[in-house]
């Protein structure tokens, strides 16, 4: 039996695909210039217009969750950081928070503030990176180059605080690894001033540059009804007017004292996503400066036991792309029993697919990446989409069936 015959879910997906002649199906990926990471989208085209999209995920499944069960609690911080090269701090922070929730110690206030600063710097860098890529996808290379040059300022700042540019390796259980370097306050202030000016400039540029607007205005529009049905997270959700943010709703780190102003927009198209992300980046600049002003003195970490008390805990942070959820089960040993994560891209991918339908092929890179996909983050589990009356839905029973099939094949170790 072929793989498709064995699984009812896959069979349905294949049957959905088979009603179209193969000439109309254009592969987008797994390796494609528009995608930073491998992921496969089968696009059914009618001329230039997309009538159906079949995403196939799992190309960057690296078995990290399983690997976590063979590593100690502290080692895992550095492992989970490597899930994503962009929001690495969000992953290590979410994991540490979840593990810290099982223990009783109080995290030093200074450490909370430092975590907030790094998390916000990461948000600025992630949003700028994304906007640069939008420039690249719309063929506006100059925007791409300019923004990435400004992004270097953030990366340099992060490097001088943590010692690393990408994988910061900065969070540790009970705090952060080291204190802020001397005299960094002035530097942060000047850099943030500079970045605020640049972000304002880019905001003006993206809302006046005609060729960019023709490519983004009204493209990939979703409304609140679609958003409520498909549950996207992060900027994608906020762009429809639903202003939800973990930082405000369930404050972690120092967000209870440094309160962000949650931005939202009502247009729900790519143009509004661009402006929204720029506004968020500007808000992050303000938060960093604000946190720097209020940061208290004190220790940045504690000496904590290597064994985490038994129990289950789940926690979440607002990663640059949206809500990032971690679940940890501890058996009171040196190693975790199970760690599970849900990355924002997984929550967003079905919405992106919905946004693509009916659009011309030229919009694929812009729309698909409008959600700021991070396939490396997403590929933890296999989710197969089912095509029923042209509607995307994952039904519980099918998911259960999928689970049974999955384990039957001996995929679990």
């Amino acid at each position, binding site marked *: 039996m072929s793989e498709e015959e064995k699984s009812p879910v896959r069979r349905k997906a294949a049957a959905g695909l088979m009603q179209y002649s193969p000439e109309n199906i*254009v592969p987008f990926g797994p390796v*494609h210039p528009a995608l930073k990471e491998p992921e496969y989208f089968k696009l059914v085209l009618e001329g230039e217009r997309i009538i159906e999209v079949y995403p196939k995920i799992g190309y960057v499944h690296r078995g990290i969750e399983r690997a976590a069960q063979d590593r100690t609690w502290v080692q895992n911080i550095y492992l989970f950081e490597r899930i994503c090269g962009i929001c690495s701090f969000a992953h290590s922070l979410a994991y540490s928070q979840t593990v810290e929730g099982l223990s009783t110690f109080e995290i030093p206030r200074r450490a909370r503030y430092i975590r907030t600063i790094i998390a916000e710097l990461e948000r600025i860098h992630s949003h700028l990176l994304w906007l640069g890529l939008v420039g690249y996808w*719309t063929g506006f290379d100059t925007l*791409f180059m300019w923004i990435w040059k400004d992004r270097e300022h953030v990366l340099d700042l992060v490097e001088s605080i943590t010692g690393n540019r990408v994988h910061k390796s900065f969070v540790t259980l009970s705090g952060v690894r080291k204190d802020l370097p001397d005299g960094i306050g002035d530097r942060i202030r000047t850099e943030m001033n500079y970045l605020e000016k640049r972000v304002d400039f880019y905001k003006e540029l993206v809302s006046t540059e005609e060729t960019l607007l023709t*490519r983004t205005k009204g493209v990939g529009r979703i409304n609140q009804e679609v958003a409520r049905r498909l549950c996207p997270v992060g900027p994608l959700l906020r762009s429809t007017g639903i202003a939800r943010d973990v930082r405000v709703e369930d404050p972690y780190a120092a967000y209870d004292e440094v309160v962000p102003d949650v931005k939202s927009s009502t247009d729900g198209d790519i143009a509004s996503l661009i402006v929204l992300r720029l506004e968020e980046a500007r808000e992050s600049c303000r938060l960093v400066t604000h946190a720097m002003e209020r940061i208290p003195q004190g220790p940045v970490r504690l000496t904590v036991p290597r064994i985490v008390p038994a129990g289950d805990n789940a926690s979440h942070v607002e990663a640059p792309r949206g809500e990032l959820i971690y679940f940890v089960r501890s058996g009171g040993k040196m190693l975790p029993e199970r760690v599970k994560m849900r990355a924002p891209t997984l929550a967003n991918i079905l919405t992106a697919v919905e946004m693509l339908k009916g659009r*011309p092929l*030229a*919009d694929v890179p812009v729309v698909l990446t409008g959600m700021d996909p991070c396939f490396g983050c997403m590929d933890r589990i296999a989710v197969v989409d089912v095509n029923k009356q042209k509607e995307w839905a994952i039904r519980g029973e099918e998911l259960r069936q999928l689970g049974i099939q999955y384990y039957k094949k001996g995929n679990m170790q």
Partner: protein
Amino acid sequence: MTTAAILVEALIFPGLTFFVCIAFLFEWLERKTAARMQGRIGPVVAGRFGILQPVADFFKLASKEEMVPLYADRLVFDFGPQLFFAAPAMGLVFVPVTGPSSILSDPLDLLFMLFILAFSALMAALLGYSSAGRYSIIATGRLVLQYTGYEIPMIIAMVTPAVLAGSLSFDGIVAAQGTYWFILLAPISFACFLVAALAELEKPPFDIPSAKTEIVAGWMTEFSGRALAYVKLTKNLSYVFLSAIAVALFLGGPLGPVLSGNATVQSFFYLLYFLIKLFAVGFCIFAIRTALARVRIDQATRLFWTVITPLSLLQLGVALILR
């Protein structure tokens, strides 16, 4: 002139070899300008300021293995690149470079030039179809659609100077610009020609048939090795070709102040004027290319049909009155 002399002129100077060198220089200048505008450095390795980088790229590509898709139409796939290359190489012979007259000239030059431009687009479409790749086929569809958009305004824009000069030969058009250049009489035509040239060259904002983030390398996706080297060289040569046409039609070709009574020395000055104008036009194209994002194919065709074509027609009407 003897046949041998014409052959030497056509193949070496100021013909093919000369223009191929200019084409490499154009690519280098384009990359360098774009890099500087974008806050980068650009090529630096090969030669001084990286000036030999396009040549190095050409030879590297030419020495690479050639892959032919299984379902490709071998006849077109194999011979297409050469024919594609022949189009601008042949057209450049009719452009005056070192003096008021070109190497070969004919009273109906301009019509032949229009044919060459159409032939070039046809070859690109054939090459795309012959490689039988999915990206290539989509790109070819886009190319042809774009062609229907830009060809008519381009022809109208090219005919306007001919109307003003009352001649269909390049020599005649250049000679008619002795007192003032046609860009002064027909500025809109010049602008329309530049926009159409951007579309013909597949440069942003009209790089739709080769949009790398959507359809990989467009109709060139399946080409590799020598064929790709040729196709890329041809695109650069077309770049020079279209700039040279713009110079001849609107900027007075090689004409300029006569500084020497000696014919040989003066032809050197003519060459200098020609090159300055050529690089000025090329630079306009680089600057537009760097400053804009890519539009969609429907937006591009709408722009050509509703804005560029009426504008060029308007200018043609004005030219008919001015004449």
